[in-house]
């Protein structure tokens, strides 16, 4: 019974997270840096902590922090990474010429 529950949760969360923006970020971080282990450890700890916080807050962090704030914050982080990557590709381009 416990194993069934564990298995069900695993499959549900696994399917929900595959191809999600979180995984997309992990792919980006891993492919643009040379340290896959650092990306793996960092993202794993973040995901476990977010899950724990979510469980403790009774299902939704949005009870504690307004959702628009979370979206704005994560949006800004994504924009910063995007700008960084564009600058990086520009550097790589100029070193080619």
């Amino acid at each position, binding site marked *: 019974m416990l194993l069934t529950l564990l298995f069900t949760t695993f499959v549900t969360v696994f399917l929900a997270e595959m191809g999600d923006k*979180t995984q997309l970020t992990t792919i980006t971080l891993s492919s643009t840096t040379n340290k896959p282990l*650092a990306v793996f450890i960092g*993202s794993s700890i973040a995901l476990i902590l977010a899950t724990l916080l979510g469980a403790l807050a009774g299902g939704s962090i949005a009870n504690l922090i307004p959702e628009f704030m979370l979206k704005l914050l994560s949006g800004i982080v994504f924009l910063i990474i995007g700008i960084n990557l564009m600058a990086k590709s520009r550097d790589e381009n100029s070193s080619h010429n």
Partner: protein
Amino acid sequence: MGQINSKSKKNTSDSNDSTTFLGILITSFSTIFLAELGDKTQLATLMLSAQSGGRPLIIFTGASLALITTSLLGVLIGQWIADNLPRQKFTVITGIIMLSLGSYLVTQGFIEFIKN
């Protein structure tokens, strides 16, 4: 021509090596943490599982294992891409994806802010 290529290759690997292990770890942590907090899918799943009369620790364990597996897959896919696709092109593509995601989230957040 070959010389230029090897030189630019060296430059990019040098700039990557200058980013420390801890630096990348912290960047990964903060980015994923923020992205995941704003993501409701997983939290909704957790809540649903909890409502179905389960034990929270089991659900937490199952969800954590699933997330570790997806991030491991993400890292492996990323490494495969870095090894097999032209680096510069991929940097531009991921840059555009990140900028689009960022604009989308900021717009969504702004719309919700106005609504409240």
